C-alpha cells in the first residue's frame, strides 16, 4: 500500500471523508520543491486541526500548514512531508465587535473577506490591502510588512490575541480582545514570523481602525534612489503623518505607470507617499509634500485618490512573478534603504536596470531578477555568487536577504535564509518545547531548528 492510502484512513477518521484529499491533483497542488505530501487535510474546525496535529505528533509525521500559499515557498525543502494542512475551510468570521473595534476571525479568512465584513460599519483591518486574498493566519506567520505601517503599525501592533493548535498540548489561547492583553509571556508575539513552525494558528483577534475619510497618493520622480530615500526620511520625520512611503526603481515605476496613471510614464526613480485622514489634513499635507519634493529637485505628479488593486500590487510587489523570476526580500534599517538600493544597482546582472520596490519605513526591499529557467552551470555559479555578495554587503549593514522565490535549479544552490543573526538558538529552544518532536515544517528552517543545543 502506498503512503497516501495508509495515512488516508486515520485522517478520515478524524476529519471525515470530505476533510481529506488524496487525489494526485490535490497532492500535486500542495507540492513543495518537488516533494508532495501523502495527504491533504482540510479541517473545518479548530478542533479538527488540533486532532490532526496530535496524531502527527504521536506518529512523528511531518506537517506543513497552508494558508493562501502566497509565501509557502519560503524556506528550504521539507525534510519530511506527510501531511499538508490546508486552512481553506477555516474561513469563518467569529466576531466583529463593532463597538470595541475588534475582529476575531479563523485563520483561513482572507483580508478581502475581513474587509467585506468590516466595511459595513466603516471599519477596516489595517494589516494589509483590503482586496488581498492572503489569509490572516498567513499574514501573521509570515509577518508580512503592513503597507501603511507608519500610521497603523505592523502586524505585531495590530494583533491582540490568537488561538493556536500545538503539537503536544492541543488548542491553546493567548492574548485577548482588549487592547492591553498580555498576562505572563507574550506568546502571541512568538507566533508572528514563525512560519508555521511552532503550531497552527486557528483564530486571531485584531484591532480595527475607522476607514479614513479620504486616502490620497502622491508620486514624484527623482534622480537617484539616494535622493528618493532621503526625501522619504524627511517626510516621515517631520510634522506630516504619511501612511506609507514606497520607493520604486525605474523599471518598477514603469510597471506601476502601466497599472495606474499615478507614477507617470517616465522611467525614473519614484517615491510614492500615501496619506489617510480628513480632507483638510490631506490637502495641507499634499501641499507641503509637494514643496519638499520640489526643494529636493524632484518632480511631483498630480495626486490621486486611489491606487486600486493593480497599483497596490505594484507598491508591495505582490504581482504574480513568473516562475523564471528570482525574488529576494531584502531587509535593512529604514535609514539605509537609499544606500542599499544604490548598491543593489551595481549588482544587477549585465548592467540591466534593477527591478526593485522598497517599503521605506519597513526597510523592506523586494528585488526581482529575471533569470533563464534552465541555466547552465556558469549562470548558476554567477547568480549564487551575486546573492552571496549581496548578503555579505548586507551583513555589514545589519541587513538580511531572504530568498522568497526562485526557479528550482537556483534554489538548490542558494540558502533561503542566508546568515544567521545569532538569535536562532533561542528560537530553536522555543521550538523544541512547543513542538518537541519537530513535526511542524520539518527541515524548512534549519537555522531555526538546527541549533537545539543547550544554552551555555
Amino acid at each position, binding site marked *: 500500500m502506498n503512503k497516501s492510502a495508509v495515512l488516508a484512513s486515520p485522517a478520515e477518521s478524524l476529519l471525515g471523508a470530505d476533510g481529506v484529499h488524496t487525489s494526485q491533483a490535490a497532492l500535486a497542488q500542495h507540492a513543495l520543491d518537488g516533494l508532495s505530501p501523502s495527504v491533504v487535510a482540510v479541517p473545518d474546525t479548530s478542533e479538527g486541526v488540533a486532532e490532526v496535529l496530535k496524531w502527527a505528533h504521536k506518529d512523528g509525521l511531518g506537517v506543513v500548514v497552508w494558508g493562501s500559499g502566497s509565501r509557502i515557498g519560503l524556506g528550504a525543502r521539507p525534510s519530511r512531508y506527510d501531511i499538508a494542512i490546508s486552512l481553506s475551510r477555516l474561513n469563518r468570521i467569529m466576531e466583529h465587535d463593532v463597538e470595541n473595534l475588534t475582529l476575531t476571525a479563523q485563520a483561513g479568512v482572507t483580508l478581502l473577506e475581513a474587509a467585506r465584513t468590516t466595511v459595513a460599519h466603516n471599519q477596516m483591518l489595517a494589516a494589509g490591502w483590503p482586496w488581498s486574498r492572503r489569509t490572516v493566519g498567513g499574514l501573521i506567520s509570515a509577518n508580512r*510588512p503592513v503597507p501603511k505601517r507608519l500610521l497603523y503599525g505592523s502586524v505585531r501592533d495590530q494583533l491582540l490575541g490568537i488561538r493556536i493548535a500545538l503539537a503536544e498540548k492541543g488548542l491553546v489561547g493567548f492574548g485577548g480582545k*482588549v487592547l492591553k492583553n*498580555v*498576562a*505572563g509571556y507574550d506568546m502571541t508575539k512568538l507566533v508572528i514570523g514563525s512560519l508555521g513552525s511552532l503550531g497552527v494558528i486557528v483564530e486571531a483577534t485584531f484591532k480595527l*481602525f475607522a476607514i479614513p475619510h479620504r486616502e490620497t497618493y502622491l508620486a514624484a520622480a527623482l534622480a537617484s534612489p539616494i535622493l528618493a530615500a532621503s526625501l522619504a526620511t524627511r517626510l516621515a520625520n517631520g510634522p506630516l503623518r504619511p501612511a506609507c512611503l514606497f520607493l520604486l526603481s525605474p523599471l518598477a515605476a514603469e510597471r506601476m505607470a502601466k497599472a495606474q496613471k499615478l507614477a507617470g510614464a517616465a522611467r525614473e526613480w519614484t517615491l510614492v507617499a500615501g496619506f489617510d485622514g480628513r480632507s483638510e489634513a490631506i490637502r495641507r499635507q499634499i501641499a507641503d509634500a509637494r514643496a519638499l519634493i520640489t526643494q529636493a529637485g524632484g518632480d511631483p505628479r498630480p495626486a490621486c485618490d486611489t491606487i486600486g488593486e493593480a497599483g497596490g500590487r505594484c507598491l508591495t510587489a505582490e504581482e504574480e512573478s513568473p516562475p523564471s523570476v528570482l525574488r529576494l526580500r531584502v531587509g535593512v534599517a529604514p535609514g539605509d534603504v537609499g544606500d542599499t538600493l544604490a548598491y543593489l544597482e551595481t549588482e544587477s546582472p549585465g548592467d540591466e536596470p534593477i527591478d526593485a520596490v522598497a517599503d521605506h519605513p519597513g526597510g523592506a526591499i523586494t528585488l526581482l531578477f529575471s533569470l533563464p529557467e534552465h541555466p547552465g552551470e556558469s549562470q548558476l555559479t554567477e547568480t549564487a555568487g551575486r546573492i552571496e555578495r549581496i548578503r555579505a554587503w548586507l551583513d555589514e549593514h545589519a541587513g538580511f536577504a531572504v530568498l522568497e522565490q526562485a526557479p528550482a535549479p537556483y534554489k538548490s544552490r542558494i540558502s533561503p535564509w542566508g546568515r544567521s543573526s545569532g538569535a536562532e538558538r533561542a*528560537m530553536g529552544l522555543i521550538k523544541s518545547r512547543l513542538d518537541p518532536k519537530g513535526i511542524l515544517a520539518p527541515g524548512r*528552517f534549519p537555522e531555526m531548528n538546527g541549533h537545539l543545543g543547550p544554552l551555555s
Partner: protein
Amino acid sequence: MTALQPDNTSDPPARLIARLEAIVGRGNVLHSKADRFVYGYDASVFRGRPAKAVALPGSTGEVAELVRLANSEGLAFVARGAGTGINGGALPQEDLLVIELSRMNRILEVDPDNRLVVVEPGVVNQDLKLFLAKRGFGFSYVPDPGSQVVSTIGGNVGNNAGGMHCLKYGVTSNHIAGLEVVLPGGEIIEVGGKTPDRPGMDLTGFFVGSEGTLGIVTRIIARILPLPEAVLTQLALFPDLDSAARAVSGIMAAGILPAALELLDRRSMTLVDRAVHIGFPDAAGSALIIELDGVREGLEIEVGRVREICTANDAVEIQTAETPEAADRIWLARRAAYGAMARISPTIYIADGCVPRNRLSEAIGRAIEICARKGLEVINLAHAGDGNLHPLIPYDQTIPGEKEKVIEAARELLAMCVEMGGTITGEHGIGVEKQEEMTLLFNGRELDAMFSLKLAFDPADRCNPRKIFPVAMFDRLQLSGP
C-alpha cells in the same frame, strides 16, 4: 505571597562579596544589613526577603559575569530598575543576588534617520524624554507610565509598562525594536535590531514584559516618534460615569482616535480638587480628559466633533485648552490623583485590570460595590480608551487584617474583569501579586506551554525565581527536579 520576613539570613560570606567586588568594583556592592533589608521592598504592598547582596554592574559584560558567578554559586538573582513596580516583581523570593541596573544609565545613540534611540536599561524614562527635548531632536519617546520621573526604561521593558497614551500609540512593547539580553545561563544575545521584521519569531516582543524571568536586559533599541505639530486637550465633565462612558464609545464610533482618553470618577475629582484646586462644579459626577494630536488642519474639526459628542451625552461642561499651560492644568487633574490620595492615606493599593471598552462604566460600578462590601474606600481612574481601570484603594496597614481585605477585594476585581471578557493586568504585570490569578485566565495546558519556555531558558529557576506562575508550579518543579 511572602509576608514580611524577619532577617534571619546570615551575612553573606566574605568570599562572595570579594568575588562580586572583583566584577563590579568595590563601591558597587551593597551588603550591610540595612542595605540588604531595603532591597526586600519595592513600591508594591508586598515584602520580599532581604537580598543576599546587591551588585550594581556598569556594563553588559559585568552583568554576564555576575550571572555566571551566581550560577556557579548556585545562587538565584533578580534584575532591578528603580523598584517602582507594583506587582512585587523585583522582590527577592529567596536568598538571592539583586542586580540593580541603575549605573547603566547612558543614552548611547540617537538615530533620527531610523527614528530610534539606543539606551542602557538604567536610563530613567523621563531623562530620555528631557534629553530628546533639550537637544531639539524633534522626537519623543512616547510611553509615559505615571512613574516616569523615576522608573527606568529597563523596568518599563520588564513590566511592559503602559501610560496615558496607549490608545493611539500602544504600550512599551510597541516601542521596542530590539534588545540585548543576558540569558539566565550568562550568554549574551541580541534580538530584533534597527532592521525591522527580521525573519523568524518576534523574540523582542517575547522578552518585553517577561518581568526579568527570562534574562536581564542590558541594552534597548527603542522607537522615537516625530513630535506632532498640534496637540489639543479637552476636559469634559459629565453628570455620572455612564454618560462619560457613552461619550467614549461615541468618540471611537465617530472614527476619532485620541492620543489619550482618561477618566476620573467623582471621588477622585473631590480628592484632586482638595489637593490642587481645579474647581470642579458640584454637578460633575465624572471627568474625561481627551487629547488629540496630529496635523493641525484636521484636528480642529475633530475637536468640534468631540465637543458635539460630549454634549449629546449630557456633558455639563467642556473646556478646550487654548494654551500649553491650560493643557497642563487639565492634565494636572489626572496626574495629581495618586499624590492627592497619598495625602489622605499611608498606603494605597493600585489595582489594574482591563475590560472591553464598552463595559468600563459597568466594571467601575461593580468595583465600587466590591470595595463597599468589604468596607473599603475606592477611587477610580481609568485609561478609558483602553478599557483599563485603576481602582485605588487606600488602607492603613497597621490595622491587622486590613491589607488582607484589600487583597481579597483585588482578587474579586480581577475575577470580574476576566468574566467581562477582559484580563488581569493592563500594564502592571503579574509578579507575585497576581501569580495565582493566572489560573483565571489560562488553563493548565496554556500555563504549561508558557512555563515550558521559562524552563527552556532557565531550567533551575534562578532568574527572578518564583514569579509570574502559580506557586504550585514551582513547588512541583522542586519535587521532581528541573
